[in-house]
């Protein structure tokens, strides 16, 4: 007989797992998506407002319930559509043929808050 039997270990494992889920640092989302064309920022999108719009590079973008996704694209392999919806910084949606990159602005990434011009 040991201190923990099989089911006790299961419970301990579950507790640790749930705890880890709540504690693990997650990339903070700013709720703002940035769309880059050829490396230059062409548009920022507030993910709080549901909308659809078309980019002149031939892509249709959907913003719904805080997530952004590509729903239509004229590129040959539609990988961008396959990337689905994103709402966290870290993994951008990329369309190489159209040179479009969509990423979620991270609250910590920029080295300035605002620009005076």
């Amino acid at each position, binding site marked *: 007989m040991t*201190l923990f039997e099989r089911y006790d270990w299961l419970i301990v494992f579950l507790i640790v797992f749930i705890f880890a889920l709540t504690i693990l640092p997650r990339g903070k989302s700013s709720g703002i998506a940035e769309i880059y064309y050829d490396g230059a920022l062409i548009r920022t999108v507030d993910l709080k407002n549901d909308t659809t719009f078309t980019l002149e590079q031939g892509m249709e973008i959907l913003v719904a319930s805080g997530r952004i996704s590509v729903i239509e694209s004229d590129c040959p392999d539609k990988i961008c559509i396959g990337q689905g919806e994103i709402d966290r910084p870290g993994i951008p949606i990329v369309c190489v043929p159209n040179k479009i990159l969509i990423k979620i602005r991270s609250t910590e990434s920029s080295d300035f808050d605002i620009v005076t011009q």
Partner: protein
Amino acid sequence: MYRLSKRNSASFLKSRIFIYGIFFVAAAATLLLLFFRNRPLEYYDRTEYYLGTYVTVRVASSKVSPTILAEAAMKEIERIDEKFGSRSRGIVAEINANGEASGLDRETVFLIKSALDIARNTNGAFDPTLYSLTKLWGFDDVASEKQIPLDVEITAALENSGYSKIVLNETESHVRLMEGVMLDLGGIAKGYAVDMAIARIKALDPEATGFIDAGGDIGVIGPKYGNRPWIIGVRNPRGESVQDIVEYIYLYDGAIATSGDYERFFVVDGIRYHHILDSKTGLPSRSGVISSTVISKSTMLADAYATAAFVIGKEPGITFMPRYGALVLLIMEDMSRYRSPGFEVYQQK
């Protein structure tokens, strides 16, 4: 042997109950902690088009919903836009149409007085009477045709301008425009709107933090998360992108504004004609400055003195600016910098 085993199994049972007891207490404590812990401040952004530019309010508060604060700020900016934002309607149009006005409200008197004070302090480098000139060059509206006016046109427009031709009687709330001069509060209304919107937010929650950005004129509501400065980038005046930054400034409070020759301009024969006109010559200012940034206590002052500093340039007059509460950063044509004494304090983290 049997007895020992039995006793052991009993103690195992006890220790198990003990360990599960600890788990239970820990779980309860964690839940309580999560429940009662202060939620981290989250900034709420709202952007709307007012006063000819995009105005962004970023605000957080631990007492009042930031949505309500942003709403109050936008309402105030909308009010000022309706009152002072246009030359074709509102109070400025009225004054210009009649050449004089009496029974002005205190706010209008304050704005005209502020504009005249700054004009006097800068010896006309900031001048609220240059509308005819601005219109002549086509800088009055995005849709207007940009062109180099004839010399005679400029001379004529100069005769109808000059801040000294505005006579303000504060005690009688009366203003008179002499010799066909036109009043233009566009140069300070934007900054004033930011200041007033911040005052609105502070009235609802004095501890609120954030900033308001009206097309690069920035007023700080309060430090980031209550204790960190807002990091403000000065745009590279010859950069391709807004995100091309040449200087960083750290602001806990106060305001900052920048005037640059890249905002509105056209190029003829390789010469850049920009919208910041020199009241002495009627031509785009040629002081060697391509961007001027001013830190001040209010956005209205920062904006107006940034325009003035652009026109004055590195002339001796620039050394008077800190006297009026304006710290200056000039970027010259060769990208060299001039800083008022004290400006560097805001560039240290």
